[in-house]
């Protein structure tokens, strides 16, 4: 191979590698995108409504208006991601045509297909997908996802589901590492994931792509905890712009993510941030309103 090649796995997964140790922030206006970049976000997620508002207002949540996405791309120089509905390959085609840097096939929007996810190999733009466990992560990677984020429960400000999902994925990987070949065939069946990927995870002891954590992260300590639990980086959705002082909170979460293992830094940056987002306890959410259960 001597010619230039775009859209290879290495190029798609490579951008996620460069985001590691960073914070990706949900933004709904170019002004918020500017605040995020100035605070040290490593990328922004362009949305019409943050998950907390989608949750509060209800209705069908869809891909954002192209004008909004383009205005956010024009405002910042860091990578811009945008969400397509699960299975909505035409929304994904539109996002690729808009030249976003990453497409999030996201359970935060209303699913467009209750059986199939998007065939992500068909795109030049890389995809990030949510997962609650290792089997789900490997199914998404098998479909072409170049980055995984554990789902958590978006729009709640309750980090408990994010904790559950990153712990689940980590413990399932660690279990595979201790298995013999013959046990891995059964593990692949039980995980409902392709054997080759299961074998790769067992041999390397990690996912073949970068793993971020998302869903309910609202404070610097939340972000640092996700990093200590083994995340490569953090998505913060409603947690920043639904708080009392987004500028200060965004910068504090960035610092806590880099110095995740230094409690004195986390203490310092947690001072005087004003009110955190109010939030909802996941236990108070009726099952049909739990977004993490979307995706199959």
């Amino acid at each position, binding site marked *: *191979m*001597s*010619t*230039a*090649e*775009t*859209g*290879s796995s*290495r*190029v798609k997964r*490579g*951008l996620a*590698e*460069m*985001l*590691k*140790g*960073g914070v990706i922030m949900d933004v709904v206006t170019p002004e918020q995108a500017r605040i995020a*970049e*100035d605070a*040290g*976000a*490593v*990328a922004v997620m362009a949305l019409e409504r943050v998950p907390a508002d989608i949750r509060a207002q209800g209705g069908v949540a869809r891909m954002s208006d192209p004008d909004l996405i383009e205005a956010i*791309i024009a405002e*910042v*120089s*860091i*990578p811009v991601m945008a969400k397509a509905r699960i299975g909505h390959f035409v929304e994904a085609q539109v996002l*690729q045509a808009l*030249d*976003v*840097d*990453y497409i999030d096939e996201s359970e935060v929007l209303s699913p467009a297909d209750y059986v199939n996810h998007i065939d992500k190999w068909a795109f*030049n*733009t*890389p995809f990030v997908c949510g997962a609650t466990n290792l089997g789900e992560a490997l199914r998404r990677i098998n479909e072409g996802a170049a980055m995984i984020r554990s789902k958590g429960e978006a729009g709640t400000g309750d980090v408990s589901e994010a904790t559950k999902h990153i*712990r689940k*994925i*980590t*413990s399932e*990987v*660690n279990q595979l590492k201790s298995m013999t070949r013959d046990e891995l065939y059964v593990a692949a069946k039980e995980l409902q994931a392709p054997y080759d990927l299961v074998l790769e995870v067992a041999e390397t*002891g*990690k*996912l073949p792509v970068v*793993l971020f954590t998302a869903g309910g992260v609202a404070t610097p300590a939340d972000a640092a905890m996700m990093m*200590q*639990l*083994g995340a*490569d980086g953090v998505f913060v959705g409603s947690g920043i712009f639904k708080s009392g002082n987004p500028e200060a909170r965004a910068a504090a979460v*960035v*610092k806590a993510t*880099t*110095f995740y293992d230094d409690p004195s830094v986390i203490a310092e940056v947690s001072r005087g941030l004003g009110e955190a987002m109010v939030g909802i306890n996941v236990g108070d959410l009726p099952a049909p309103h739990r977004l993490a259960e979307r995706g199959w």
Partner: protein
Amino acid sequence: MTSLRDESLGAVDASGPRVGVLALQGDFREHARILGELGARVTLVRRPGDLEGIEGLVIPGGESSVMDKLARAFGLAEPLRERIRDGLHVYGTCAGLIMLADTLLDAIAGQESFGGLDVVVRRNAFGSQNQSFETDLEIPVLGERPLRAVFIRGPVVESVGPKATPIATLADGRVVAVEQGGLLGTSFHPEINGDTRFHEYFLSKLRSA
């Protein structure tokens, strides 16, 4: 609980050169692992005190505007600038090349670099991720075999001052790797494709310094 991240700093060779890897953000663990496997004694650098005793530094790929903010917020930028002026060997990939450039184009408002390389570097010179690519590059200082170079929203060297020397160019003539004494910068990411020749080259210059 065991993290899935590769936290390895490679095999420890007590005689190898002490090399720091800037660990504020980005793919610093890939660099740390490769340097360790090549026999360097690797330390991760986040604070001014971490610079003590290092003979070389690698600045990884990542987001240059984030590295700049964190380096200044935690008091690392100024002491590092001084060490670079005093001859610290530094290799920067992608964002690392941006951090080493004396002059930046298309930086965010107020963005600063550490400087040292007598070059003008344009950030995100190829466009969005859809324009990111990999290609074979001839790099004479590394030998005849071309290097598969991966460019991820990469920068290019727009002009090379008298102190720096281009060591790799794209087919269209744009400069994507430069050298100046102990400083080395590439627009692309040898750390993510398993080719360790740039790291070996950096360490061999450090050993003979």
